């Protein structure tokens, strides 16, 4: 890539008219699009070919923090009858450099029969879960939810300390002892599998 395609924060990239729109790593001010990060400048036509999307890619140094509606991967640290605490390890496919605290409340575990949820039959400490960020929460933690088929426990450890195999949407089986344990199992979509291995 050419040197000229590297831009620094505050560099003016283009006019913000009806042909050009600013994407990631940019901001617009007074009718111009400026870069907001150090990285490579890229112009790409949008899907319907009517506009040009201008974005700046930082390369491998991405600074992400969880925001609403993101899919995150988290490790369960603490379970009690009302909620379970976890630490968020990555957002989408990007691992975080620092863990953030998250919370799954009892009523956000599944979409149906919310009142009959028992937390101990859904999560155990050490499980790796996939969840969606519902709100930024309070000073303590982000509020996460797993009320979707694709969300829930992705990797569950059995009492014998072995990674379990899902057998139904609410059960996992230990391959060593063949014991079945209850979990809110995620129907992991292929694109998430990679994420989990990275995390």
């Amino acid at each position, binding site marked *: *890539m050419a*040197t000229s395609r*590297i831009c*620094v*924060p*505050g*560099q*003016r990239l283009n006019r913000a008219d009806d042909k050009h729109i600013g994407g990631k*790593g940019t*901001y617009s*001010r007074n009718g111009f699009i*400026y870069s*907001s*990060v*150090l*990285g*490579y400048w890229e112009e790409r036509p949008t899907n319907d070919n009517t506009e040009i999307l201008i974005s700046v890619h*930082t*390369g*491998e*140094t*991405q*600074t992400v*923090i969880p*925001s609403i509606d993101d899919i995150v991967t988290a490790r369960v640290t603490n379970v009690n009858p009302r909620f379970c605490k976890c630490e968020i390890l990555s957002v989408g496919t990007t691992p975080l*450099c*620092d*863990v*953030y*605290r998250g919370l799954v409340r009892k009523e956000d575990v599944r979409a149906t029969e919310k009142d009959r949820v028992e937390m101990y039959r859904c999560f155990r400490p050490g499980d790796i879960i996939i969840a969606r960020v519902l709100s*930024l929460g309070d*000073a*303590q933690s*982000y509020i996460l939810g797993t009320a979707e088929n694709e969300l829930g426990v992705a990797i569950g450890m059995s009492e014998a300390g072995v990674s379990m195999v899902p057998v139904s949407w609410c059960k996992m089986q230990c391959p060593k002892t063949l014991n079945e344990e209850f979990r809110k199992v995620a129907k992991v979509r292929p694109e998430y599998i990679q994420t989990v291995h990275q995390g």
Partner: protein
Amino acid sequence: MPTDTRRISGPEISHSPYDYCLTPPIDLIGADKKRLDGRLPAQLRPLFLRAGVISQARGSGYIEVDQTKVICAVYGPREVLRREDFSLKGQLTCDFKFTTFSCRLRRQHQQDNQEKDLSVQLLEALEPAVCLQKYPKSQINIYVTVLQNDGSALSAAIICASLALASAGIEMYDLVLASSVAMRDALTIVDPTEREEEAVLNKTHKAELNAGSMTVAFLPSINQVSAISSDGEILCETLTKSMRLCVENCLKLYPVLQQALVKHRLDKQADTS
């Protein structure tokens, strides 16, 4: 521990020998219209900038303005751990520290009042440039250490911190540049050294109205001043004039900072491929 009673213990309070040195008043410019280090009054010192000097930090920078050397590290965005510090908006914290050996007189390990004041000024200079609303519930920590101080340490620190922030990939509206001037009577010198800074502040006769120093932090592409501070007694007209001079000097430094960042990006690219 038993004390040695035969030994005469030293005095409780001691002073650096430099305290008793007589510092004769110096002339800012000599007969040849040149300053002590041979520069012209409006001449900046050569500048060296490098990003990515601390591997653990998210972003870092190092600046050398002749004998003034400053290193800076940026960590975060990370979660705010202490409940009382919490705010939904993103936060920036700055920590400015002179090393104990950076100045002529030894400094204490603990942050003194001047360092606290400089931390606040550094924060003021950087805050308008960072897109803090992109980092809710998080904080970004900036640690600046002055390794060697030969004047204009604050402006060097501001440039260095802005370099570190940009190399950390933090979203910013603009880069921040800074420049200092010192003035006495009708004379204005740019980028003063430590001796020159001291000389204007320790003026001896009261009759002089104009003696002081000033630092301006500037956002070049937005064309706005993000921080301005002055010390010493200065006339209003001089103040305005010096501010414009500082802004001009900031613009001279802009390409240097840009170059340093581009080089940093290219180096990184070379490392990965």
